[in-house]
């Protein structure tokens, strides 16, 4: 019987080289499915491309047009508003729900399964449900309000409330996702810190604000990154429920780009909008990465 000796530098280099080859298929796949389409979108954004015409190199014209376009700035404002509103709602509600679940002993599996259901539903189903429930004339939401003696609301049909309504629909769907991340993070925290705090006489509010939330911060940032990427590219439910209306009140950048590309066939301009949105998403992820390092423990 021979003893295995630690590998030397040469064999480590050989092993490392073979690992690189094993990663190659994934890299090729990523290049083919992510990098190439993105480069194509960038190329397209530098061209004026109308349906039926040959692409004409336009330099930065599409980006100049974008900066001067009121609809772009309206879309940018709405995209940011929807992102911040939904993210705040989901982080607060998700954290509360996750911590509540951590204390729950009975039927934990059943409740977790039930919580997964909303985000398993396809967006088109969510959108259609929202139309049926929230239609001011035909929907059940106003019927329920009337039964309670309250006045009806316009929900998705009012320019003043449409973004809030969309944010609430997304919050209903994705809060359980945040809650499950928080639950996982909370259960992995060291118990002795909580026991020590309890022995030292810390109250439940102090334990929450001084221990639980700071220790959960990296988990919350991870949840925020995942939800942010999703929220910034939020499209389907808005398109199904309002198509960007009433007026332009829910025409986020995604809706605007879709309409420019697929309804008005301005592919170059739509690509410029999407490249800009990608830059925003990338910037957001970078900012959260820095934040995550800052809150790491």
């Amino acid at each position, binding site marked *: 019987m021979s003893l295995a000796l630690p590998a030397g530098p040469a064999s480590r280099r050989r092993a490392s080289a073979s690992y690189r080859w094993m990663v190659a298929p994934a890299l090729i796949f990523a290049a083919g499915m992510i990098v190439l389409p993105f480069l194509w979108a960038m190329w397209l954004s530098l061209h004026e491309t109308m349906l039926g015409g040959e692409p004409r190199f336009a330099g930065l014209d599409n980006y100049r047009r974008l900066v001067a376009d009121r609809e772009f700035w309206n879309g940018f404002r709405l995209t940011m508003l929807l992102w911040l509103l939904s993210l705040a709602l989901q982080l607060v509600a998700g954290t509360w729900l996750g911590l509540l679940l951590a204390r729950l002993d009975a039927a934990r599996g059943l409740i977790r399964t039930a919580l997964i259901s909303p985000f398993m539903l396809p967006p088109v189903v969510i959108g259609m449900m929202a139309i049926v429930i929230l*239609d001011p004339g035909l929907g059940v939401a106003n019927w329920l309000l009337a039964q309670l003696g309250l006045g009806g609301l316009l*929900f998705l049909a009012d320019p003043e409330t449409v973004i809030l309504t969309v944010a609430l629909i997304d919050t209903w769907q994705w809060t359980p996702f945040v809650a499950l991340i928080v639950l996982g993070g909370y259960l992995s925290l060291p118990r002795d810190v909580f026991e020590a705090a309890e022995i030292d006489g810390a109250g439940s509010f102090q334990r929450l604000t001084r221990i639980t939330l700071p220790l959960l911060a990296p988990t919350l940032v991870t949840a925020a990154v995942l939800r942010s990427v999703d929220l910034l590219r939020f499209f389907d439910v808005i398109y199904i429920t309002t198509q960007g209306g009433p007026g332009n009140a829910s025409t986020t950048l995604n809706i605007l780009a*879709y309409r420019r590309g697929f309804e008005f066939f301005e592919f170059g301009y739509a690509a410029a909008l999407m490249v800009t949105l990608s830059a925003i998403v990338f910037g957001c992820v970078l900012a959260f990465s820095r934040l995550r390092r800052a809150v790491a423990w």
Partner: protein
Amino acid sequence: MMNRRTFAAAAAGLLATPALAQQFNWRQQDGRTVTLLLNNHPWSQAMREMANDFTAATGIRTRIEIFNEEQFRARLTTLMQGRSPEVDVFMSLPSREGAVFKRAGWYTDLAPMIADARLTAPDFNYDDFGAGMRQQATLDGLVATLPINQEGPLFYWRKDIFARCNIPEPRFLEDIPEAAARLRACDAAQGVWAARGLRGAVNYGMSGFVFNMGGSYATADGKPGLCQPATIRGIEMYANLLKDFGPAGALNHTFTQVIELLGQGRIAMTHESSNEFANIVRFPGRAQDLGVKVLPPGRESGISRPLVIGWGLAVSAHSRQKEAAWMFLQWATSNAVQTRLVQNGVAPPRASVFQGPAFNAWANELPIRRAWAEALVEIGRTGTGVYQSPTDRVPEARDIIGNAMQQIVLGRASARDAVCAADPDLARLQ
């Protein structure tokens, strides 16, 4: 009473006449499979049920994809931009997108196939389609589509509610707001009016108001002309009806919500597609208590200028089996098939079907069917398929006009300000 089975048998008989069988080989493309990309429409739903008959007659199998209109257009654009041969036949609205699709080279010119005796049945008779329909489907000499229906918005009103409130049937356009106010005064619990409010869908319902008031979307020299007094009055009347008498949330409504409201008896009037007739009269009671006619003319202008459009079937320029696709087109638009489609509320674009005994027998079964058929004859005779300012970029132009109407409903601008502000935006599209 002619039931569905009798109807189908008569139609099948027409297709299987001995002369036709002897002179034309319907099975020349036997064994092929054609893919159809269709918009969700009563015609498409009926075709899904009838496709097996096509396979039985020709040996050609079909793969049918039906999407709601927005998804249908997105998928079509994606496939055609990629020059994909995946789609052989697609639905198209030449009045909306014809110029752009033709410039993109998406249509196969059907004229050579129509003229080819090997490919086209001798009784096909292209001239049987109404002249207006053929004109809409022909783009600078290229026959882009074969018409599969004709449709346009019609005025529907609840005769029983009008009678109960002692309100006469509107004879002029200006009578509609008056009737709306009297209906509200008569029964505050009864919904009065609904129509399309969704930005991109507004023009379809609104243009009759503009034209009948004597307005136009263009000036005499072909420039965008929304900022003309009669045009402003027409748009304002449509917007005010929605604002003052429409249902809550009307700006997100398209035909689906309007039909539901009318069918459920929640509203007393609307201006909605003739195409939805079959869906409306499926609701209990509506076949008896509704009236339907062309939107009344303007009292001052004396003008009645309704809309009439028709969906068509096109053969994709990228299809690798154009002849099999053409077999489907001529079968689906044949006299026999169109006669059967009337049962599904699809108004036939063929004169021989419209004037034929089967259609007349069906229409005479109920007064509302007769009224619907007469309204279709009238819009076919007097209607127009152009309902935006002059441009090839039709969807964008309609979107801008719809947005102006929405601004009035939202109270963000006066009718004049909202409408006149749209003209410069429309001018950019020319």
